[in-house]
């Protein structure tokens, strides 16, 4: 597995794979294949893909340690950038199709709906991480500060689930939210476990 992960096609392949959802959505939107309410379908689907990418990026470290695939680290930055990419499209689609780019409406909505505010906060944190994701930024910030900033991905995970939970609370329908909550709780819980009860290996 490690040899495969180190293969020079691993990164391009991952890039292509994670581009497929947006390509498909774009195609579907263009060809009117998104059902009765295309705007809603697009916004929600982009949110789903953001959550999926987030689960995957948080899976990197546990898999590295537990499965012994250190080479996975090579792919983490790209996965993180995909989280930001889908979150940005999600936000853009909301501002465009739901709000018609009326910024006063967007601001009013941020103030009115806690779930919008929480989602926006997630995006700001992701923006900060994406904006400091290149090597020079690590040097400029210093490793310790950079690491601290990038730990905000844990906050993003919690806030993203809260965002989804509040959004679904209108329908009292928490099955899907529950799946993401459990996955992310396991992934964050594993980190807490590793930190408090290390078993001789470095959890990093």
């Amino acid at each position: 597995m490690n040899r495969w992960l180190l293969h020079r096609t691993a990164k391009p392949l991952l890039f292509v794979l994670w581009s497929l959802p947006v390509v498909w959505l774009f195609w579907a939107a263009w060809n009117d294949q998104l059902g009765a309410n295309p705007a809603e379908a697009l916004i929600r689907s982009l949110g789903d893909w953001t959550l999926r990418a987030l689960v995957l990026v948080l899976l990197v470290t546990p898999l590295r340690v537990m499965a012994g695939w250190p080479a996975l680290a090579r792919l983490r930055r790209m996965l993180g950038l995909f989280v930001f990419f889908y979150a940005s499209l999600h936000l853009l689609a909301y501002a465009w199709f739901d709000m018609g780019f009326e910024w006063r409406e967007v601001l009013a909505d941020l103030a009115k709906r806690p779930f919008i505010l929480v989602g926006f906060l997630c995006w700001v944190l992701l923006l900060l991480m994406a904006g400091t994701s290149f090597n020079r930024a690590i040097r400029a910030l210093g490793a310790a500060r950079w690491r601290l900033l990038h730990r905000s991905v844990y906050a993003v995970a919690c806030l993203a689930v809260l965002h989804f939970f509040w959004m679904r609370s209108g329908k009292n329908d928490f099955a899907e939210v529950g799946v993401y909550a459990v996955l992310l709780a396991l992934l964050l819980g594993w980190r807490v476990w590793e930190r408090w009860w290390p078993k001789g290996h470095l959890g990093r």
Partner: protein
Amino acid sequence: LAGASSALPGASTVEKVTAYEHASTYNNFYEFGTDKSDPVARAKSLKTSPWTVSVEGLVNKPRTYGLEELLKLAPMEERIYRLRCVEGWSMVVPWVGYSLGALIRAAQPLGSAKYVEFVTQADRDTMPGLRSSVLLWPYVEGLRLDEAMHPLTLLAFGMYGEVLPNQNGAPVRLVVPWKYGFKSGKSLVKIRFTDKEPRTAWNIAAPQEYGFFSNVNPDVAHPRWSQATERRIGEEGGLLAKRRKTLMFNGYEPQVGQLYAGMDLRKFF
């Protein structure tokens, strides 16, 4: 199922009718699941025959109607109504049915009857959504007697010239065009006349969000979103179509405004 074009004022909007494909696949019918694609996928299991509707409570003539009798109670009319969902989308649907008033007059409500309660089908064997506790089952809705008697309040058996598809509330449902869609109960089994305001499903689930009246009102926001605009399903321009301004009483203010004269609509939302 044919119906003569209705002569009732306001009953035939000339706006573009929503595609049947959209009106019959994008539905809220939680008895079959909370996703809008669930009803069309799962409502085939609904058994619409035999079907009875029991009319009871504070009336002189309580009676259980078989569907066949109900279909013959009054002449069928086609009514083209706007439908505004509380979630912020809307459609234009040609319904087939007659004014609920015809049934009410046949039942002869007592002077003490002030409200009408609509109880809908709740059959665990054919409605998979009942396994979830999203709402209290059966789904109950209600109207004030004068609202129920208003000629625009429709007892519908069909749409687009056909018998109602299961996912749209077959075999008989209510359509109250000036209220948010959830007020119009689907697959009715009981119509009960009472002297107390009925406890309705969404009002029980979230009283601060869904009032008994739930009249379409652009000026009274839902606690979690604005109701000032709506997305018309199938609007020209697709994704890029602008949202429309929502109209007071969904555009039926000339017909129904007087029902609420003097009422504080912020308080009685």
